[in-house]
C-alpha cells in the first residue's frame, strides 16, 4: 500500500456518492471546455497576419445592405485583385423544414475569389448561365440525396417572390467539394444567382448585398487595405467595416450579444454550484471520518500529513472529473465542428487546457481547503472521545 493508494481507497469509500459527485465535476468541466473554447474564439483580437481575403460589411450592421456599385471602387484599391459579394438568403429545405446556409452571389466573381471550392468547370459554366441555378456543397448533397439536374424546392424565411410565395424552386446545376480536408468539412453551403434573386424578390431589392469579399494580392498588407476601405467610405451613406474572414465570422455570431460575458456568467454559475456540491461532499466525508483521522494522528501522521490526505482526495476527485470533462469537451467540440461543416470551430486549444488545469487546482483548493484545515486542527483526544 502507498499513500496514493490510501487516498484513492478513501475517495471511493462511498462509491455512489463519489460517482455522482464525479459526474457533476465531469459535466461542469465539459461545459467549461466547450464554453471556454467559444470564449477564446470570441475574445481573440483582430489578426490580419496571413489574411488572403477581407470582408467588407456595412459599419452599422451585417444586415444593412451595401450597393453592388461599390465593386469597381474596391477593385481599384492597390492589393485587391478581385471582389465577390454575397447576400444571405435564409433558405429552408421544404420537405424536412430544415434551415440551410444559403447565399446569393455572382458565380464568376465567387469562383475567382474562392479557388478552394472544387467543381467541374462545366458546372461552374452552367451555374453562371442558368438564372435559377443552384450549387451545393458535397455534404449537403449527400445529406439530402440531391443529384445534379434535379429541381430543389426551397423556401426563404426572409424573401418572398414577387407573386408573394415564399416557395422558390431552383435547378441543381453543380455540386462542389473542398480542396482539402479542412475545406471539405465546410461543404454544407448552398449558393444561388444574385441576378435571379434581384429580379425575382418581392421587395425589389436590387443591386445590394450584405457583404463584399476582397481577394488580396499575394503579400498585400491586409491591415492597410482594411483601413483604406473604411476610410474610403467614411462619412458616406454606406460606411463600411472591413475585417478578416475569421473576424467576420466571429462578429456575425457576436450580434447575439456579449458572448464573453454570457460565457463568463454561465461558467460562474456552473462552478459556484460545483463548489457547493463537491465542497459539501468533502465536508461530509471528513465529518464521517473524524475518529479515523484521529487514529492517523495517533499512529504518528503529522497535522500536515492529515491535511495533505484530505487535500489530495479533493484534488484527485476534481482532477479525475476535470480531465474526463475536458476530454469529452474535446470530443464534443470535434463533433460539433464536423456537424457544422467547420463553420463553428470548438477546438480546445492549449490555452483552454491550461485554464482547465488551473481551474482544477483552484477548485481542489476551494473544495478541500476547509475540510482539510478541520482535519489538521482536530485534537486527537477530543476526536477519539467523539467530542
Amino acid at each position, binding site marked *: 500500500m502507498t499513500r496514493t493508494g490510501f487516498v484513492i481507497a478513501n475517495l471511493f469509500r462511498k462509491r455512489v456518492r463519489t460517482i455522482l459527485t464525479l459526474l457533476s465535476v465531469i459535466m461542469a468541466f465539459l461545459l467549461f471546455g466547450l464554453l471556454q473554447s467559444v470564449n477564446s474564439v470570441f475574445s481573440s483580437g483582430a489578426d490580419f497576419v496571413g489574411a488572403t481575403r477581407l470582408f467588407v460589411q456595412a459599419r452599422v450592421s451585417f444586415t444593412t445592405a451595401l450597393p453592388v456599385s461599390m465593386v469597381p471602387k474596391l477593385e481599384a484599391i492597390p492589393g485587391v485583385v478581385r471582389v465577390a459579394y454575397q447576400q444571405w438568403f435564409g433558405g429552408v429545405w421544404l420537405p424536412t423544414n430544415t434551415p440551410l446556409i444559403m447565399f446569393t452571389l455572382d458565380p464568376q466573381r465567387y469562383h475567382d475569389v474562392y479557388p478552394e471550392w472544387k467543381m467541374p468547370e462545366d458546372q461552374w459554366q452552367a451555374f453562371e448561365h442558368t438564372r435559377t441555378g443552384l450549387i451545393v456543397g458535397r455534404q449537403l448533397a449527400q445529406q439530402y440525396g440531391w443529384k445534379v439536374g434535379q429541381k430543389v424546392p426551397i423556401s426563404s424565411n426572409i424573401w418572398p417572390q414577387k407573386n408573394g410565395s415564399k416557395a422558390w424552386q431552383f435547378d441543381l446545376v453543380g455540386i462542389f467539394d473542398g480542396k482539402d480536408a479542412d475545406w471539405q468539412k465546410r461543404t454544407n453551403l448552398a449558393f444561388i444567382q444574385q441576378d435571379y434573386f434581384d429580379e425575382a424578390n418581392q421587395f425589389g431589392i436590387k443591386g445590394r448585398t450584405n457583404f463584399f469579399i476582397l481577394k488580396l494580392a499575394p503579400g498585400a498588407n491586409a491591415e492597410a487595405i482594411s483601413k483604406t476601405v473604411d476610410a474610403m467610405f467614411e462619412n458616406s451613406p454606406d460606411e463600411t467595416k472591413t475585417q478578416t474572414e475569421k473576424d467576420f465570422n466571429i462578429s456575425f455570431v457576436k450580434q447575439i450579444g456579449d458572448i464573453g460575458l454570457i460565457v463568463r456568467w454561465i461558467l460562474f454559475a456552473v462552478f459556484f454550484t460545483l463548489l457547493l456540491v463537491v465542497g459539501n461532499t468533502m465536508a461530509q466525508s471528513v465529518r464521517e471520518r473524524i475518529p*479515523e483521522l484521529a487514529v492517523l494522528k495517533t499512529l*504518528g501522521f503529522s497535522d500536515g500529513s492529515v491535511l495533505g490526505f484530505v487535500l489530495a482526495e479533493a484534488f484527485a476527485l476534481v482532477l479525475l472529473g476535470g480531465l474526463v470533462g475536458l476530454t469529452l469537451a474535446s470530443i464534443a467540440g470535434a463533433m460539433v465542428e464536423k456537424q457544422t461543416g467547420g463553420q463553428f470551430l470548438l477546438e480546445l486549444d492549449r490555452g483552454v487546457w491550461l485554464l482547465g488545469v488551473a481551474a482544477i487546482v483552484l477548485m481542489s483548493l476551494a473544495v478541500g481547503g476547509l475540510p482539510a484545515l478541520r482535519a489538521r486542527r482536530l485534537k*486527537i483526544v477530543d476526536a477519539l472521545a467523539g467530542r
Partner: protein
Amino acid sequence: MSEPMVQVHNVTKVYERGKQQVEVLHGLTLDIPKGDFVALMGPSGSGKTTLLNLIGGLDKPTSGEITVGGNRIDQLGSGALARWRAHNVGFVFQFYNLMPVLSAEANVELPLLLTKLSAAQRRKNVAVALEVVGLADRAKHKPRELSGGQEQRVAIARALVSDPQLLVCDEPTGDLDRKTADEILGLLQVLNKEHGKTIVIVTHDPKAAEFAQRTLHLEKGQLLEQAA
C-alpha cells in the same frame, strides 16, 4: 530495580469545558519499569484514560513532567510528538479503530508508511506482525469481514508492526465476550513476557486486570494504591 520506561512526575491535567475548568489529574506521580504490564483501574471519570493519553503522547499535561523511554515528551512540539509516537508507542483502542476501507494487512502497514522501509520490507514486517497475532490467513480481509476479536488482533498487529517498546491499550477487551477477551489478554501477556513489551492497559474489568503484573487504582485523579 529495572530501568524505568515511563516516569510521570507531579502531573496535573486541567480540561476546559466551556467556561468551567475541570482538573482531572492532581499532581500524579508514577513510575513504570521497562517490561512491566500495568493495569489502570478506577471508576469512570477517575482519570485513567487521561493518564493513558498523556503516557502515549496523545495529549500534554497542564503541569508536571512525563518521561518515556528517556524522552521528556511533555516538552515536545506537535510535530515532534507525532514522530515520537510513530516510533516509540503502539496504541490499541476499545473499538479497534481500523480503517474500514483497507484490508487487514493494509491497516497493519499504515504506520510503516511513516518509515523509510521499502515496500518489500514493509510487506515482510506486516506478515510477521499478523503471524504474531495469529491472523496470517485473514490478511486480505476488510475489517467488516472479521469478528470483533480478529479486528482487535489486527489492531494489536498494527500497534506492534513498528516494534515500539511501549503499548498503551484503552479498554482493549471492553467490546469483546469473555472468551475472546481472555484470548486478547493472553496475547498481550505473550507480547509482554516473550517480546519484552511494556504494556499499560486501562480497564474496568477485574478479570482483565488479572492478566497484568500489577494493578494501579485511580480515584478522582489520584493514585490510590499499588497492588502486586
